[in-house]
């Protein structure tokens, strides 16, 4: 089977829609196909990375547990928009998992570097 690099782009907050879960499911599926996967968090998707999420209060399942299993699927390249964090008063040390901060130019470069981009 051929190999392509995949970039999963998250733009939405964790529980306002099903997109965050679909993005994670897609990332895991692509990893099962033994393709390299990176995940980029833009805009309100940075809220997916916060610790201490308690979605049970609104009858939803936590996404945080799924984030923790990513390394088991060899998904270790997690990127976040520095601007998205700054606009929301957040910094990487407040996030639940280690992520690499990228400025806008680096985000562009990251997208260019990948063969397949899936948007959520």
């Amino acid at each position: 089977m051929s190999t392509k690099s995949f970039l999963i782009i998250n733009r939405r907050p964790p529980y306002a829609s099903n997109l965050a879960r679909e993005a994670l499911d897609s990332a895991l599926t692509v990893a099962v196909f033994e393709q390299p996967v990176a995940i980029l968090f833009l805009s309100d998707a940075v809220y997916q990375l916060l610790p201490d999420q308690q979605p049970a209060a609104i009858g939803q399942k936590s996404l945080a547990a799924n984030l923790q299993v990513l390394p088991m699927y060899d998904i270790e390249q997690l990127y976040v928009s520095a601007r998205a964090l700054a606009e929301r008063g957040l910094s990487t040390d407040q996030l639940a998992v280690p992520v690499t901060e990228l400025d806008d130019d680096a985000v562009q470069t990251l997208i260019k570097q990948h063969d397949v981009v899936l948007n959520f």
Partner: protein
Amino acid sequence: MIFTIVVQGAPHSQQSADSALRFAEAALAAGHQIHRVFFSGDGVHNGSDLATPQQDERHLPRGWQALVEKHQLDLVVCIAAAIRRGVMNDAEARRHDKAHGNLADGFNLSGLGQLAEAALVSDRVLTFGQ
């Protein structure tokens, strides 16, 4: 060029559902190939046989079916997203104790692996978002 199209928008809720169909029609008319159309999230509603828009409105399930007839387009509806939203074929309906299925002819239920496979063999993957 070989395209794969991902549809996340539901008919009548998101213009992206209509845009996806229009893109597919235009790409095929221009001589491109579409390896697969993958309906995920709310996009699974594009595959409902029960959709009954008014006669002067666009009918997206029929639009996709027309492309299947003319171009043997492969329409795959994400099974996990579909059954939780009440879109399923007769086999799934029986399995879940429902009176009947409602997946329109020409659409098939399958998993996310079909998206991964399609991305590997396509030149471009286009997402029509939610």
